């Protein structure tokens, strides 16, 4: 099951004693601050987790996969995520869905 905002808020409520409203708001503004920083063109570095960077992509030729028609993919700015050492190490230890 995927982890969602509702579950994140539930844990803040249980573990930190924020009330439900505060916990829900906190999760919301946490992600909003990260979005706002990226929107403003800044990098976001969360040590122990990873870095969110921005990349500027030039226009390149693309194709409508359905019709085969050639259409340019316009220049754009995109977000990339680079996991930090700690996150990488902890995920690497995961042995896959078949083992317990």
């Amino acid at each position, binding site marked *: *099951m*995927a*982890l*969602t*905002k509702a*579950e*994140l808020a539930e*844990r*803040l409520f249980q*573990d*930190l004693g*924020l009330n439900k409203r*505060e916990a829900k*708001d*906190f*999760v919301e*503004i*946490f*992600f909003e*601050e*990260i*979005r706002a*920083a*990226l*929107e*403003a*063109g*800044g*990098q*976001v*570095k*969360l*040590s*122990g*987790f*990873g870095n*969110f960077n*921005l990349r500027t992509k030039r226009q390149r030729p693309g194709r409508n996969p359905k019709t085969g028609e050639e259409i340019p993919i316009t220049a*754009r*700015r*995109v*977000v*990339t*995520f680079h*996991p930090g050492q*700690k*996150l*990488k190490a*902890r*995920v*690497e*230890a*995961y042995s*896959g*869905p078949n083992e317990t």
Partner: protein
Amino acid sequence: MTKSELIEKLAQKQNHLPYKDVEFAVKALLEQLVQALASGDRVEIRGFGSFSLHYRPPRMGRNPKTGTAVPLSGKYVPHFKPGKDLRERVNSSE
């Protein structure tokens, strides 16, 4: 923006919460994200994006110093896919 700057900003906006609580909440949130991924779960944040694991199959690596071949086992790496809202906002502000 670093983690401490993020905590600073959130503390300013949530001035009914003591700074310590904001700091703890940010760390608790990040720890939850890490734990979910470390146990093989996805993370889906509507409007922000999703984190999932991608599998890297086993391969032969090489010790760059000695040149000897070293077998590397398969592993999982974290992957982030930005959500629609984040994608649009990042691309619209030039």
